[in-house]
């Protein structure tokens, strides 16, 4: 389970979908990096990712990691957002996870991602929801 400190450091990305845009070549990096992999630039501006996109690669996890037993089968997908940035996210609100297909339009919603047992912290972020 994540420590409170690590989780806290990632709030801008997890809560507000803040990404880094390379001021030299314009590439948007999520999560942000120290060096741009495209042009090796080191200066970035903060941009907020759009919350609409489509499914590029769906899958369904049937043997879940600890903490996700009650959410099995667990749909996960690589989603390409409308600005071209791709990220891997859980997919929420699927009555039948096998219905998730390549190309399905989705949007990102703020959801609880996991919790540290009964007494620990709650961790929030974004999941994809099919439109």
């Amino acid at each position, binding site marked *: 389970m994540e420590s409170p400190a690590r989780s806290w450091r990632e*709030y801008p990305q997890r809560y*507000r979908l803040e990404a880094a845009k390379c001021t030299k070549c314009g590439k948007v990096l999520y999560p942000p990096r120290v060096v741009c992999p495209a042009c090796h630039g080191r200066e970035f501006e903060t941009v907020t990712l759009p919350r609409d996109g489509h499914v590029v690669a769906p899958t369904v996890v049937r043997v879940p990691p600890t903490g996700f037993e009650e959410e099995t089968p667990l749909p996960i997908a690589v989603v390409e957002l409308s600005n071209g940035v791709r990220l891997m996210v*859980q997919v*929420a*609100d699927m*009555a039948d996870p096998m219905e998730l297909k390549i190309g399905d339009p989705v949007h990102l919603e703020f*959801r*609880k991602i996991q919790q540290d047992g009964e007494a620990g912290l*709650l961790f*929030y972020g974004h999941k994809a929801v099919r439109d």
Partner: protein
Amino acid sequence: MSVGIVGYGSYIPRRRIKLEEIAKVWGADAPSFKRGLQLHEKSVPGKDEDTITMAVEAGRRALIRSGGIDPATIGAMYIGSESHPYAVKPSGTVVAEALGITPQAHVGDLEFACKAGTESMYLAHSLVKAGEVRYAFGIGADTSQGAPGNALEYSTAAGAAAFIFGSDPERMLAEVVETYSWTTDTPDFWRRSYMHYPRHGSRYTGEPAYFRHVMNSAKGILEKAGLKPEDLAFAVFHQPNGKFPLRVGKRLGFTMEQMEPGWLSPWLGNTYSGASPIGTTAVFDVARPGDLVLLTSFGSGAGSDSFIFRMTDRITEVQNLAPLTRMQLDNNKIYIDYGTYAKLRGKIRMGE
């Protein structure tokens, strides 16, 4: 200075359980429950939806309808709920961080059974009116719980509504004409520390609690504003079931046409702190410029807050900028059985 609402939004989870599905498990007579409570189905939060997540989504929709307010200029945010995910640690800090309101903001969690949502609106409105902040968020959200087999299990539901208060004439979509509150110590419903489920005074929750407070609050604000029921285009009352809001509205002199647009409980259930605020968002979705809207909440314990809003010309420009409340209620539903419901609501004891 005129103060009012400059943005609003709602969030309703997709999952639903039908009243028959609950009645079947407990050997109850579904038709008599449906007739008596005027309830058909209710919303159920997913494992990943809680007061915080619903408040964030409703808040984002309010920001969209505000016409581009910079979240950093919002000086206060309050969340009313009786299902804050933490016993100690605010819901509001997570929501404010996610919406981009932090760090220069006054943030707080409120609790007052089903009226904590209008409490947050009351405070937000008052701070803007006092000139302390430029904008303030008032949010009501709940994932309410009823004990298995208890009458409350047929109605306890989930949802959220968010309102941004401000005084910019160019952004205002509903001016606050009047506010009023009516409060007494009436022990009709409570939950002690460490208890999972609330207890209530059965039929005692009706006359001395709900009806007395809602009647006095609604009458009080109408008198204060110098208005009669026929002057209002819409009236929204707290809706713990389908029956109570219609009965109290009729007693006050309102017609079905005035109440129906904000009467969601037969298909939504009781979203507690979200109930009358979500009903208000449904009314805002269809209101026209100049319409007067009455909102009267009720919270057990007990108290009742009232607002009268006058819609401005801007309302019709923003209605379709974010998901409409009725559309969320009627579309994309996922029906679940009682077993799934019990799992999602944490009613199953898991192995170590």
